[in-house]
């Protein structure tokens, strides 16, 4: 089943996440459309990363983390026991705040996900390598250096490589947790262009502390505060006429 652009791809119902006795997310309800960019904003420590990590169940790795509620991805609850966790993570990829390419060659980084999912045909791997690096505009830069260790790349190249590593797996959703916070403004602008490009095929959810970035790239915006989703709506509306006074305080910089 392929969800068309603009249709709902992800539905979050009554999501609560706890770290031990601390409640990091409080009763989150939200629907996300396919092939759109959704920005999540809010002050530090209010649960944006926690929310993002719920969507590919990366919180499972954290000792003492507990989740209640439901997240439907293409109509199926990802927390149900039938969920194929490895397949979920293939379909819902994640880019981290600090670029984290593996200390392997560029080529091995890109094909890593495919090999992990049991695809070992050399010709296919090379085709995906080419395709993925093309998709993040790295192919021309790196085509002669595919055997070089990925740690030798610049921060921007590393972040693009991390994106290529996901795209090789043909995911449907890309989660980005402050993907530009370690990059300079020019690199940030280029990554934003890339996100725009990728939006045609992928559903993107990005956490950012940068208001302008949220306003520039996203179709929808959600404002988190102390574990609650205060407001969610079209980015235009949120930034021009927010309904909740707390949202207004935050985006006009009167947050304190």
């Amino acid at each position, binding site marked *: 089943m392929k969800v068309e652009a603009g249709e709902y791809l992800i539905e979050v119902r009554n999501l609560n996440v706890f770290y031990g006795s601390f409640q990091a997310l409080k009763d989150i309800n939200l629907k996300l459309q396919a092939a759109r960019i959704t920005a999540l904003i809010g002050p530090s420590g209010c649960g944006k990363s926690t929310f993002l990590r719920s969507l590919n169940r990366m919180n499972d790795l954290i000792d003492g983390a507990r989740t209640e509620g439901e997240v439907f991805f293409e109509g199926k609850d990802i927390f149900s026991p039938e969920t194929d*966790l490895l397949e979920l993570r293939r379909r819902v990829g994640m880019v*981290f705040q*600090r670029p*984290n390419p593996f*200390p392997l060659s560029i080529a091995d980084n890109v094909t*890593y996900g495919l090999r992990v*999912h049991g695809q070992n045909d050399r010709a296919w791997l090379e085709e995906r390598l080419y395709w993925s690096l093309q998709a993040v505009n790295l192919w021309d830069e790196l085509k002669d250096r595919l055997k070089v260790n990925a740690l030798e790349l610049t921060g921007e190249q590393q972040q693009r490589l991390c994106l290529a590593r996901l795209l090789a797996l043909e995911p449907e959703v890309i989660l980005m947790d402050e993907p530009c916070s370690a990059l300079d403004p020019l690199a940030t602008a280029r990554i934003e262009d890339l996100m725009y490009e990728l939006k045609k095929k992928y559903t993107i959810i990005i956490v950012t502390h940068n208001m302008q970035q949220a306003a520039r790239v996203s179709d929808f915006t959600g404002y988190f505060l102390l574990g609650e989703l205060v407001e969610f709506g079209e980015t235009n509306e949120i930034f021009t006429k927010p309904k909740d006074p707390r949202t207004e305080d935050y985006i006009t910089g009167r947050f304190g």
Partner: protein
Amino acid sequence: MTDLRKSDRLIKLGLLMIAFSAISALFVITLFIFEQGGPIMFKYGLKSFIFGQDWYPSEKIFGLWPMIVGSLMVTLGALIIGVPLGLATAIFLAEFSSRRLARILKPVIELLAGIPSVVYGFLGLMFLIPFIRENLGGPGLSVLAASIILGIMILPTVISISLDSIRAVPDCYREGSIALGATRWQTVRMVVLPAARSGILAAIILGMGRAIGETMAVIMVAGNAAEIPSSILQPVRTLTSNIALEMGYAAGEHRQALFATGVILFVIIMVLNTIANLTASRQGKR
């Protein structure tokens, strides 16, 4: 102000002298071994000394080949047994066990390093030797017994150093891998271990050094016949055992030949260390 500088200079001078005397002590020992063992090697010919098959000191036949082979065999055996076991333990403790279990087990494993080697030899003699003799044949005292005992003895070194190097691999690699849908084991095999490679290699080198230099436990379980064993169930004598067994009564050229044994051991260890270091630094650069 001036006083401080003065005391600083004094301390520096003191440390320099201590460092210098430590290094010169090593230098003097090396020189002494070569001085004592060198001449006889050239008198009887380097080739017959190294490749000679027979060791009859009373008849002035000094062939060290059986002991060279013996040392290499038990060291290799110890690595074959100790490295996979140690590495598996380190991987388990670092990646799969609960943090509490690891916190309890690590000091226990390090304690194993503190047990005197004569105790390992004694345990080998009591349990391992009869077991091998009854179940596998041969005299029990054998290459196999020495390899097993040494394999156990190098475990603490291999485990604690490779554990540290696996733990030093940043978590962001693990997260990145898991987020791509990799299993824990795939993550360990394809990302964590390659990233920890140089530390693991260092663990193996140190384990090897410990195995090739160990004497007491080996003497107790190896049987010590000065000939090349025909199978791993046959007795074997190592270079270190050769020195320790005969030093008590050796005199004259016999004594010098034992020093020459030390020279050969010295050279073998230098060569192995250099090879290992070269591999480590080349892999580190990659």
